């Protein structure tokens, strides 16, 4: 005990302090939404995703009620560049790992989208609803709801809800997975170079293949179908089956 001098005491004090909860330093998901991350480049989420986290016009997606693991993965993928977006990449890169985890958890705890059991009734062939509910199996395109769940409510951590997202956002994502093919020059127009996909973060390449096999018109139609589902005011009785 002889060497219980000032430096030792300081070390002990630090040890005690570190073992206490430190609310000032722990990442607070709600605070990140409202005020941004510790790094000022990580702007507040609500600026673009809305105060309620349900997204905003201009293709800013809903985050409220999305699966925690899915949200965290997207932020990590923006950081790594497997999902590219000029607005989100700098923001995600400015968030620490703890902040990513905290904000993903906070949004996952917000309300999920409410969708009625069978929105829209029987789809008509060639419509967006048809692609969503029946698929285009002659091109091996499964119906969206087969993986994203009946009514597009989302399944597990890997298949996010499509219901509750805007048509603008869904269309942009399908095109991000697809990229653009090169267009050869004509007498009237110059050649347009190919655009590589800006989203490559789908597990097992499941979305890239689907997006490549859809036309622009089909992408727009299916995006409009999910965009039209909206957020129902009546909660769905979870003890009931959702029909395909």
């Amino acid at each position, binding site marked *: 005990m002889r060497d219980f001098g000032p430096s030792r005491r300081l070390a002990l004090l630090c040890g005690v302090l570190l073992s206490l909860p430190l609310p000032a330093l722990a990442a607070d998901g709600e605070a990140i939404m409202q005020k941004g991350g510790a790094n000022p480049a990580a702007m507040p989420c609500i600026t673009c995703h809305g105060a309620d986290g349900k997204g905003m016009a201009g293709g800013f997606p809903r985050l409220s009620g999305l699966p925690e693991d899915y949200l965290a993965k997207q932020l990590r993928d923006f950081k790594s560049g497997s999902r590219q977006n000029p607005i989100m990449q700098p923001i995600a890169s400015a968030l620490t790992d703890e902040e990513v985890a905290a904000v993903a958890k906070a949004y996952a705890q917000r309300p999920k989208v409410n969708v009625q059991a069978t929105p829209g009734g*029987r789809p*008509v*062939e060639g419509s967006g609803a048809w692609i969503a509910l*029946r*698929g285009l*199996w002659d091109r*091996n*395109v*499964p119906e969206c709801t*087969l*993986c994203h*769940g*009946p009514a597009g*409510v*989302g*399944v*597990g951590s*890997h298949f996010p809800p499509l219901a509750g997202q805007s048509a603008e956002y869904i269309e942009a994502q399908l095109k991000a997975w697809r990229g653009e093919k090169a267009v050869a020059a004509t007498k009237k127009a110059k050649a347009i170079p190919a655009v590589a996909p800006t989203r490559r973060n789908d*597990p*097992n*390449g*499941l979305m890239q*293949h*689907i997006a490549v096999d859809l036309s622009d018109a089909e992408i727009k139609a299916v995006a409009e179908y999910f965009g039209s589902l909206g957020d129902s005011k009546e909660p*769905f009785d*979870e*003890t*009931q*089956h*959702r*029909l*395909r």
Partner: protein
Amino acid sequence: MTTISVRLAVLLLPLLMASGAMAVDTARLDDQTQLPKAPKKVSGTKYFQPPAEGEIPNNAFGELVRRGQDLFMNTKALAPQYVGNEMNCVNCHIDRGRKANSAPLWAAYPMYPAYRKKNNKVNTFVERMQGCFQFSMNGKPPAADSEVLTALTAYAYWMSTNAPIGKALPGRGFDEPPPPKGGYDIGRGKVVYEKQCAICHGDNGEGKKVGVTSVFPPLWGKDSYNWGAGMHRINTAAGFIQHNMPLGRGETLSDQDAWDVAAFINSHERPQDPRLVNGSIEETRKRYHADDGVNLYGVTVNGTLLGQGVK
């Protein structure tokens, strides 16, 4: 016997018979593979094209066809009394029973009634569907004249519009790939499963649900097909997987991978074969599994005897 009681007996008789018909003679449903082999599709030709959904007529018949399609897609939700697990017809018959090499209805319906060597009987299409309920859906077969089987029959009949009767069409069944020359390997199959399948079907083959509704079907365990289902055969599962899995990316796995992963899936415990003979796995294996394709019922894998069943 008084007149009244006779009348009562007459009234009750159809009820008793209906409930008697529920207990289907299991020996008549045991076999799934005795139809003539479907020919390969000639390259450059298309598979049979069933009519479009929009062509279902708007009349009483059309209503029944639509009801059949609804049952086909939502079997557990709409016919829960007959489904003992979390499977729906559409899980094995992709695209509502329309997709070639996913046991399409348009190729099956015109092949019945069919004689089956194993039970030495002619089986109707309805009896074939009863087999699906008993084995693939681990449930109780609906009566032959039930609304459920009548609607499903109407759906299959409508889908077979313009299909030749009694002619094996390319695309029927699952077009099973031949067994790999070096055999299959459960360990390799586990690697394929973890990489390609677990994302949807879960780390333990449990599938995934939304609320009470099954989205990705369980592949083993108590909520999956039982040991009597055709899919418990590795060769059959390999065919389904090679042509249809992962969803939308069918025919990307090699035949070897399809066999390996089919073996991995079917080396897990599942509900008991309802035909269990004298409570004996050994007797049941001899009678129903020994000559039924490639399967692991009654086989010891990694020190565990398979075929014990789970509830």
